[in-house]
């Protein structure tokens, strides 16, 4: 089942589009927070710190979009829900790995930004409302900027150690 099946892009209003964008950022923020928690629990501070940074970025985007929504539509009730989106900008759950290097964490974030970009690219031709089209096009181009930022960080990140991944399996521990 496609997670975005219930979004009718052709009839999407600007209010619903802004709400959708807020939910996408909110989900991404929560996933990065979860990943940061997982990395902290498993003593992987560099990846944890990067995921925490990404969560902060997603929250900034969410807050900016939420402010725009309030400015245009006040407290008008929302007609979109979290059930309509899944993993649009949030990294897939299995992107997290025990003892991820900073490079692996950056690559996971890059794949998420590419995924979000693909979502907006696929939605654009289906949109009928000019304002919604402009919003989605803006969001699409922001994803390109985010990809560039992550790529720049990747270029500066130290190379991964040349060790087999199995050496870093992190089996369950007592709690």
């Amino acid at each position: 089942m496609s997670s975005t099946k219930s979004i009718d892009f052709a009839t999407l209003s600007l209010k619903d589009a802004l709400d959708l964008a807020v939910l996408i950022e909110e989900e991404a923020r929560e996933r990065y927070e979860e990943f940061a928690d997982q990395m902290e629990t498993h003593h992987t501070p560099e990846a944890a710190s990067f995921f925490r940074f990404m969560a902060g970025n997603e929250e900034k985007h969410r807050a900016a979009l939420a402010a725009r929504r309030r400015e245009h539509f006040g407290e008008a009730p929302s007609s979109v829900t979290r059930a309509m989106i899944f993993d649009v900008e949030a990294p897939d759950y299995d992107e997290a790995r025990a003892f991820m290097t900073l490079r692996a964490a950056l690559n996971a974030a890059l794949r998420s930004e590419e995924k979000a970009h693909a979502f907006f690219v696929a939605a654009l031709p289906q949109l009928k409302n000019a304002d919604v089209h402009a919003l989605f096009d803006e969001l699409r181009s922001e994803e390109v900027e985010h990809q560039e930022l992550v790529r720049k960080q990747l270029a500066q990140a130290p190379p991964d150690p040349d060790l087999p991944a199995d050496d870093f399996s992190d089996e369950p521990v007592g709690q």
Partner: protein
Amino acid sequence: MNLIPSLTPKDFKSDLKPIWCPGCGDFGVLQAIYRALAAIGRPPHEIAFISGIGCSSRIPGYTTAYGFNSVHGRALPIAQGLKLARPELLVLAAGGDGDGFSIGGGHVPHAIRRNDDITYIVMDNQTYGLTKGQLSPTSPKGLHTVTSAYGSLENPVNPLMYVLAYGASFVAQGTPADMPGLAAVIEEAIRFPGFAFVNVQSPCVTYGEEGQQIKAHKAVMKHLEDLGHNPGNRIEALDKAQSYGQALLTGVFYRDPDPPPTLGALVHERQQRLMAGAAPRARILDMFVQH
């Protein structure tokens, strides 16, 4: 029963941070449970979550509901006892495939035939992950593990066929690769009046096969609704359930269109009937002494 529509998934998240391996499917299952509970709208203190032993059985501790991380395979007996004693509670049971279909396998048919109003969520990862990757009852034939170095010679249990054959009134399957779909079937299972079973294909990132991971699920999963499945037909459900291990079908396999009364309802009815002719409690000791 209190219904608080403003509850959010975060209201069900405890302060305890999960220690599952990063990338474990159970993280997604936990989020789906939070969402389902928020949609149900009952406050955490009206919910009891019972589990057995295993990675997935840690799940009650990660919620703000009452929880009991019990002994291996015994989530269902404890959940049934609790539901009988406190019928007003929303009772959930959870565990892994080993907990549910090996050590606790004998309890499943009895929970089904009693039909108490419990939702049983099995996180099926086809391995004993907590004890480092031994064969479990749902491990596919031929699987190489630490206890099957040359490949498993045993056929796996099919949890869907198992519960359908014993007469379960609500049977569904989900995967954290489709969290909205998983949250929806868990919510529906909780709302179903009677024993409801949800099998969740929850990948083990440390010991699971590549083809059982979330990305692989996303590529192959098919929703039963999209296949035109009729969930009101047990025979059709059994037919679809045969695909377990070959295909990943998600959604509701079977939902009894005319749910039978729950054990709790039958017990209540009998209590009401017998109490009409019962002697006052104060006289019970006298009667016992006389006879």
